[in-house]
C-alpha cells in the first residue's frame, strides 16, 4: 500500500481546485459586499429547500420501478419521520431508522 500508483498530479490539482472553487464561489462573489435584503431573505429560506432536495438527492439511486420498489428506504424514512416528530431526538431517529433499513434489506426485502 505504500507503493502503488500515485495520482497524476495534474488531475489531482484540477479536481482539488475545481472542488475548492464550488465551495468558495459564493463567498468570493458576495463575501466582501454587504448583504442585500433579498440575499438576507434567501439566506433564511433557501436552506429548507436545499435540505429537502438533499434528501431527494440521496434517494435518487434507488430503483423504484422494480422489486423492492424502494420499500426499505421509504419505510425507514417514514419510521424516522414519525419518530422525529414524536420524540424530536435526532440520535434515536437515525439509530432506529438505520437499524430498520439494515434489517429490512437483510430480511423482508432481499435484493
Amino acid at each position, binding site marked *: 500500500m505504500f507503493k502503488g500508483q500515485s495520482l497524476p498530479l495534474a488531475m489531482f490539482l484540477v479536481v482539488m481546485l475545481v*472542488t475548492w472553487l464550488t465551495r468558495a464561489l459564493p463567498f468570493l462573489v458576495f463575501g466582501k459586499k454587504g448583504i442585500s435584503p433579498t440575499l438576507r431573505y434567501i439566506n433564511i429560506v*433557501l436552506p429548507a429547500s436545499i435540505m429537502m*432536495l438533499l434528501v431527494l438527492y440521496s434517494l435518487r439511486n434507488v430503483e423504484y420501478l422494480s422489486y423492492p420498489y424502494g420499500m426499505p428506504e421509504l419505510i425507514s424514512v417514514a419510521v424516522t419521520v414519525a419518530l422525529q416528530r414524536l420524540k424530536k431526538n435526532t440520535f434515536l431517529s437515525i439509530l432506529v431508522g*438505520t437499524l430498520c433499513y439494515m434489517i429490512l434489506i437483510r430480511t423482508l426485502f432481499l435484493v
Partner: protein
Amino acid sequence: MKTLRFAAKQTVPILFSYVFVGIAFGILMIEEGFSLFSVILSSTFIYAGSMQFVMISFVLSGAPLITVAILTFFINARHIFYGIGMLDRFKGMGIKYPYMVLTVTDETYSVYQSISYPKDLDPQQVDFYIAFLCHMLWIVSCVFGAVAGQIMPWDMTGIEFSATLFFVTVVVNQWIDFKSHIPAIVGFISGIAFYFILGKDNFLLPGLSVSMIVLMLLKDKVTLKLEGKKNV
C-alpha cells in the same frame, strides 16, 4: 472543553456515514492500486466523498483534463448553494475563514442547519470544531480503510443510509420550527419535477436553481408568513 464536547455531539449523526463511506473509499483506492499517500492527499485536500470516488474512475480511464474539470464542477456545484445560504456565518473568523469555506460538505452543511447554539458558547468556535472534527474523521476513516479495511468482521451494508436519515431529521425539524412551509414544498416539487423530466442524475442543480428563483418570486408571500402569526 465544553465547546469541543458540544461540537463533537453535533457531529454524531453523520459519524457512521463518514466512517463507513470513508473506509469504503480507502479500500477502493488501495484495491485499484493507488498508494496510501494518494488516499491521504485525496481525503485531506479534496474532502468530497462522491467526488473522490469519481476521481478514481477519471484516473483509471485517463479522462482528459477539461472533462475532469467540467464534471467536477457539476458534481460539486450544489456547494455553491450551500455557500449562498451561509454568507455571514464565517465572517470575522480570520485565518480560519478559508478553512471553514473549503470544508463544507453535504453532511457538515446539514449539521450547521441542525444546531441550536447554547447561549454560553461562541457559535463560530463551535462551527470550527465541527468542521475540523468532521475533516479529521474523514481522513482517519479513509486511511483506516486503506490500511485495515479488509478485516471488517461484521457486514455493515446499509449503514451509510444513516446520512440520508440525518438529512430527513433536519427536514422534519425545519418543518416543525419554520413558520413557512413554502421553501420545503418548493424544494420538494422542483426536485420531483426535475427528477422525472431530467432523470436522477440531472435533477439537483435545476431543482436548486428553480427553487431559488421561485423563492425570490414568492418573497412577499413567504416574508408575510415568517413575520406573521406564530406557528400553530
